[in-house]
């Protein structure tokens, strides 16, 4: 018996894999994921004050930080045609001075609360974000009330803001990504109120304190804002403090600006933005789509993920991993009140610009014509579901997302029912959305050194327009010599025409 056991052990020792290999078998594949943890975000509770201001509260118990987001339901689309950028100016001037206190005193008050005050402006909205320590809530809201009710727009502050805006744009214009993106917006928003969201640097000098005061008086009204409070306060307590600080803010009729759906590009066209000396170039191809129903927006999110959402998406896998043309290749979607923009971005060297354009075109066309396999749809959905809590992980991101939901009246579909909406996306709905969005003409922008690009683009049959990095039309490069009549086209000339009327 003993001999048998020894033989068995020896036999096992010689026929089995080494012990280390046995131990490491668990390393061969990743462990299975645990079942999805469904979670519900704290609800956005809403109260309507007597002055018609809607206040939303997301009560985050025991959270040590607080945020108040004041969202004005007016962005660049309501800036006067002759004063593009005025809404941005209003946002940046907010809180820089109140009647009794200088900007410096306000900074001291802000710092003493650990506070930060920032402003951002989109075509539709102006959002003032005020973040501070939870213990300072009443003081912070009182200060916000003074900023709202007693603004003091001094010439000195206005000049400082204008100077910063000018230098800021000057810096951005050297950036390939910005130059390409801005030119795309100029093209896509050409005949729409959104054109003002890419206001030119020259336009900054036209901003005045008088125009600002008028704009503020028209649009900064309680019946035209949404106030989102995020932090450790229940609805009743928070509302009481807000009422004390902002209850006397008078409502007033706000002028309505008709906002048509974003027009589709009439035809595919191409522009080059000249950035002298740039070694690489950035390709941006984009198109517009009209306002979408909730379900279609989720289908579009899935579609975008498949096209170019991450490094696993088709554009990246093709342009970078397979062809090695691009440093990166992604796509993204921006949603506005009047519709949205889907855009592809790729950074390449000029020697492969034509090849890259061809591959981007192929990927878009394939998605528009061929249904996406279910497995790819499910992978995209899995990504979106996984990403959702991560996108809300930082305090600032959480507050901003809640404010956006409140301002757009998006409701639970984009908040507590987000998972359900993603899960409901089907291959059919993605294909229908692809056919609707990806079959419209795309506008192509290439930002780079014109000298390096011209040689490569000579292989193109179609004409293209060349602009400088401020969006000023330079000339048309055309084989068919039909460009002369188009030389006055472009937002820049439109801006000149409109500002001349003043």
């Amino acid at each position, binding site marked *: 018996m003993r001999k048998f056991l020894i033989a068995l052990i020896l036999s096992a020792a010689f026929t089995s894999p080494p012990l280390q290999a046995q131990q490491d078998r668990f390393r061969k594949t990743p462990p299975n994921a645990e079942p999805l943890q469904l979670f519900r975000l704290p609800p956005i509770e809403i109260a309507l004050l007597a002055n018609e201001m809607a206040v939303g509260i997301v009560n985050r118990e025991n959270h040590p930080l607080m945020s108040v987001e004041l969202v004005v339901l007016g962005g660049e689309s309501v800036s006067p045609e002759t004063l593009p950028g005025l809404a941005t100016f209003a946002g940046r001037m907010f809180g820089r001075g109140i009647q009794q206190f200088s900007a410096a005193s306000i900074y001291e008050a802000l710092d003493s609360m650990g506070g930060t005050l920032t402003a951002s402006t989109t075509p539709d909205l102006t959002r003032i974000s005020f973040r501070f320590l939870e213990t300072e809530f009443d003081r912070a809201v009182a200060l916000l009330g003074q900023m709202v009710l007693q603004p003091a727009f001094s010439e000195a502050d206005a000049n400082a803001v204008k100077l910063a805006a000018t230098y800021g744009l000057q*810096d951005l214009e050297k950036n390939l990504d910005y130059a390409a993106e801005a030119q795309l917006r100029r093209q896509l928003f050409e005949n729409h109120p959104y054109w003002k969201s890419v206001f030119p640097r020259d336009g900054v000098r036209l901003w005045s304190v008088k125009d600002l005061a008028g704009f503020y008086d028209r649009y900064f009204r309680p019946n035209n804002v949404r106030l989102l409070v995020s932090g450790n306060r229940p609805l009743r307590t928070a509302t009481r403090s807000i009422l004390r600080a902002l209850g006397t803010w008078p409502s007033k009729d706000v002028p309505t600006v008709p906002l048509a759906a974003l027009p589709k590009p009439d035809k595919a066209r191409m522009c080059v933005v000249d950035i002298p000396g740039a070694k690489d170039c950035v390709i941006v191809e984009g198109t517009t789509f009209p306002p979408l129903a909730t379900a279609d927006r989720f289908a579009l999110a899935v579609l975008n993920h498949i096209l170019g959402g991450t490094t696993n998406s088709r554009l990246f896998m093709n342009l970078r991993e397979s062809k090695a043309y691009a440093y990166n290749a992604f796509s993204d979607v921006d949603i506005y009140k009047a519709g949205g923009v889907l855009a592809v971005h790729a950074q390449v060297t000029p020697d492969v610009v034509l090849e890259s354009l061809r591959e981007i075109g192929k990927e878009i066309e394939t998605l528009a014509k061929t249904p996406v396999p279910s497995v790819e749809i499910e992978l995209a959905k899995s990504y979106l579901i996984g990403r959702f809590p991560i996108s809300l992980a930082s305090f600032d991101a959480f507050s901003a997302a809640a404010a956006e939901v409140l301002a757009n009246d998006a409701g639970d579909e984009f908040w507590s029912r987000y998972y359900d909406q993603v899960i409901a996306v089907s291959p059919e709905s993605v294909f229908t959305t692809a056919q609707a969005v990806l079959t419209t003409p795309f506008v192509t922008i290439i930002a780079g050194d014109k000298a390096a690009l011209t040689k490569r683009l000579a292989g193109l049959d179609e004409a293209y327009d060349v602009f400088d990095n401020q969006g000023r039309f330079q000339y048309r490069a055309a084989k068919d010599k039909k460009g002369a009549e188009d030389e006055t086209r472009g937002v820049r000339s439109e801006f000149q025409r409109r500002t001349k009327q003043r």
Partner: protein
Amino acid sequence: MHRRTLMAKSSRRKAQFLLFLAVAALNTPALAAAEGLFSLTQYKLRNGLQVILSVDPALPLVSVVVAYNVGSVDESPGKTGLAFLMKNLMFSSGSENVPPNQHINYIHRVGGRFNASASEDKTVFYETVPATHLGLVLWLESDRMKSLIPTETAFAQARMDHLDDLRGRRKDEPFLESFWSFDQLVYSDFAHSHPLAGSEDDVQALTLEDAKGFYATYYVPNNAVICVAGSFDPLKAKEWIARYFETIPRGKDSGTSSEPFAPAKKQVVRTFEDATATAPAFCLGFSLGSPLSDDFSVLSLIDYILFRGRTSVLLRRLTNQRSSLMTPVRGVLEIRRDRVTYKIFVTANTVQNAEQYKDLIFAELAKLKTTLLNESEVGRFKALYKMDYLRVVASAEDRALYLAGSYLNRIPVETLPLELDRFLKITAIDVVGILNRYFRAENSVVLNIKPK
């Protein structure tokens, strides 16, 4: 086609703040139990890997940080740039069970995000994923800790990318050469003074064998810490960590030594002509000893008093208060493993302006050294610090980075949940004492920068 790394660079300010927090709890007596703003448990595996767990169920996500105690201070002469290159190789190389470049794809597939950073004294890898995928991240990180397989192709690509970036930065990044030159003045030894990016000649000469040797020496469990923060079951996490990490063999101990700090006795002033300088400028540095000294927390508050927030003393004096331009003025408390320096960088319109600004800085410091800040002024800077601190601990990812960084800075991690309380007890008198101890002209180094 050259490929560039896809990893986003962390914001400089956030990184600096995390660094701060990581060394700000040094003189707290050891506490029996960690009670405070967040919970944590820590233990060491048999192979020396330190494990820190911090549960926060607020959102269904989990962040994992694996940090190695290695940076450019560990490089040998002639091998500079290796620490930075190694960080990128950890993504592009495969490991025994993860094919090359697939680490990123595994993370992206589940909706996660990742990043990494290499500094003078640490190399940090981190991922945030849905809580249900904690096992995946532990599997991925353990595989590259255990069995990275850098190939000649991946190495050559990483080296070429790095050289491209380095050349581009030297050509386009204003003042880069000045900053490197300033480091040579501030730090007298090779380990601390050479640039993280390395020299072009050194990087060009690096070999795959160098990378393998560096990996074998420093990317070992006994030279690392893993921190998990977020929504997870600690028992399950411990089980996974034991399974994936405890079987990785311990490496050789790579001890680091540090020389005792001695304050300088004479100001050092040099001039540097820089082809990329866009304006006359100067760098001013004060040597502040070791991050393990009892003074560090007060130095953190002094940094806020001098340069953080819009009402900080030097920022307010040196910039136009009404302008929100990106100001060419900054101050930073810098740690390079065992050495701390306060660095100030100021640009000016003219050389005369630069001299005036320098005088102004010393005049303001002189005032601060002789006049106590009042309670409300100190309170203001403490409030800013508190806000930054709470932002960090409220986010699973930032908290994990903070805890892992603290461990590598040899801070008793169990004291960290009470760090804020201790910081808030610093007084104006403490501030004056530390300013007088370190912020003296004879303990300073000045590099005057002239555009070439």
